[in-house]
């Protein structure tokens, strides 16, 4: 089992003929993702990795209806491409690109809400239901099936943690990257609530960071609405206030979003926070046993 996507999820790749698009299409196919087509305006009729390429999402949908689309589209054109997929009826949109303008992101989210669709990202590694479907750019080999759900604001740090789990033979149900931008489609709560309902997920890891208040909101949700055990790791303990640490949200401004307030909120909700990534497997093992 898994959340959001599974083996049956039919996937479209927008921007499939580009360097990133074609590379990750191959990687996703290798992982077992059920990709059915690609889109690249002006490249209709070509094929990539044996998949048909269409000029528009509508053209693709006429022949190969899809459930999800992953976008490898340069930031300035990402809004148009996301609108296209949403308008054509795609219900899960994975926005890989970084540097999408903030107002474009807000526009996309407003339209997605209208179209009743889920947006993952932007600036995300995507999501993967381990062993069945990967719609993203994460390295295949670390994502093996198991009982742990993971939701993360950052990418490589999430791989790091998944890597430690793999070393300890702990697999994952679904791993979701929320994305590092200030406005993203999913928040922790959206994903935690799905994990809560997923029978296969036995424990959840929340990978957060300083800045914003989404970890605090997640903590409030966990304490009132979750029965499953959750542990956390948070990056940015050592970050000085006022300095943006790469991610648009990762900044302690006006005393808000500090490491301490997040740890406090999570602890109050019964969530243990690992001091180092290496400590995560032990915490999970303790919970699962």
């Amino acid at each position, binding site marked *: 089992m898994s959340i959001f996507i599974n083996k049956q999820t039919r996937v479209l790749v927008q921007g499939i003929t580009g360097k990133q698009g074609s590379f990750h299409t191959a990687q996703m196919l290798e992982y077992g993702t059920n990709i059915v087509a690609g889109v690249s305006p002006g490249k209709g009729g070509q094929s990539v990795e044996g998949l048909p390429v269409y000029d528009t999402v509508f053209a693709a949908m006429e022949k190969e209806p899809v459930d999800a689309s992953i976008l490898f589209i340069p930031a300035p054109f990402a809004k148009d491409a996301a609108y296209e997929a949403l308008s054509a009826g795609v219900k899960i949109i994975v926005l890989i690109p970084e540097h999408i303008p903030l107002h*474009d992101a*807000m526009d996309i989210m407003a339209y997605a809400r209208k179209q009743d669709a889920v947006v993952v990202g932007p600036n995300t590694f995507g999501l993967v239901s381990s062993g069945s479907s990967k719609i993203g750019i994460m390295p295949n080999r670390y994502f093996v099936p198991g009982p742990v759900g993971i939701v993360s604001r950052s990418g490589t740090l999430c791989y790091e943690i998944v890597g430690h789990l793999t070393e300890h033979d702990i697999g994952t149900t679904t791993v979701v990257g929320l994305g590092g931008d200030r406005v993203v489609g999913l928040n922790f709560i959206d994903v935690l609530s799905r994990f809560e309902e997923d029978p296969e997920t036995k424990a959840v890891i929340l990978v957060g960071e300083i800045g914003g208040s989404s970890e605090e909101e997640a903590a409030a949700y966990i304490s009132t609405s979750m029965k499953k055990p959750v542990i956390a790791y948070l990056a940015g*303990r050592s970050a000085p206030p006022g300095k943006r640490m790469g991610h648009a949200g990762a900044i302690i401004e006006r005393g808000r979003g500090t490491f301490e307030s997040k740890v406090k909120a999570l602890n109050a909700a019964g969530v243990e926070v690992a001091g180092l990534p290496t400590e995560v497997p032990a915490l999970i093992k303790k919970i699962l046993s």
Partner: protein
Amino acid sequence: MKLYEYLGKKLFHRYDIPVPQSKMAESSEEAAEAAAELGDVVIKSQVLSGKRGKAGGIAFASNPGEARTEAERILNMRLNDLTVEKLLVEEKLQIEQELYLALTVDGALRCPVVLASLDGGMDVEEVAEDRMIKWPIDVSIGLQDYMTREICRKMGVSGALQKEFIKLLPKLYKMFRELDAELAEINPLALTPDGLVAADAKVTIDDDALYRHPQLPRVKEKTDLELKAEELDIAYVELEGDIAVMANGAGITMATLDMVQHYGGAAANFLDFGGGADVERTAQALELLLGTNPKVLLINIFGGITRCDIVAEGFVKVRESKGIDLPVSFRMVGTKEAEGRAILEKVGIKTFNSMDDAVRHAVELTGAS
């Protein structure tokens, strides 16, 4: 990109938001001339730091002589490590009340929000929560008059002042949306006998959208290395320590810094050179690091899109061309891990499997050197 007050006010003026009469001055003489024209004035240092008033960066003058004296005092003073080079000389407003008004982005709601308060002049965080009205805007319909009426009702504002808000707020929203602003803040928003006037302007433009605003000025108040990093689109922040850190991904870079601190070290910087870097980009990131004259290099690579062999190649290239002999602690796993290690071993650099080991080694190296 944060804009200076005077640039923000220029934009306000372009969007028909009332601002005080003003002149720019870069010398005390120009300040005196401006005062001769404007009468009672306020002289405001143009730096991006807040709290200019408390730091002495703002002064009043009621004649050209006073203006000259105050301008002399303020010009070239240091405010939060920034040198004052420009002054905004403005007519002194007859302020009946100081209000607060801003548009910003609410990440949790994923939409713009209006922030409005009768308690202007204070920092937004200092205003009591129930005195700061927040109103989210659905971008599919934009800012509508009913929203302004509702915001006014919640503030307890009616009559003529409400009408002023109904005139003003749509203009601020239009600017906020059209110019891709992250923040458009008026604090204080001055109620004068002539209506509402923007007594200050804090405008931040989304860096990711600057490409579609070629007409906007480019403001740079950063160190040389930070500017260089921005050019290269590398996320870079200078810190105080002596271990130069680079990693691929914002979260893992932060986690690396945390671990450096955990093991008793001090990082010289935050440097995330992102995913999928090629040799060139790796080399550029490294050169940036060397600019801080660190004692030790700590490189933490978890290869996903990023290929270890390419990072290794970039490293060797810079090492040879620049003749680096700094101690290095190198962690490298993931895509093309074996190939990367082979390249580094050829130049005598061993790599770590675990981030823990690499960080500990780096901290040890600072003690040793």
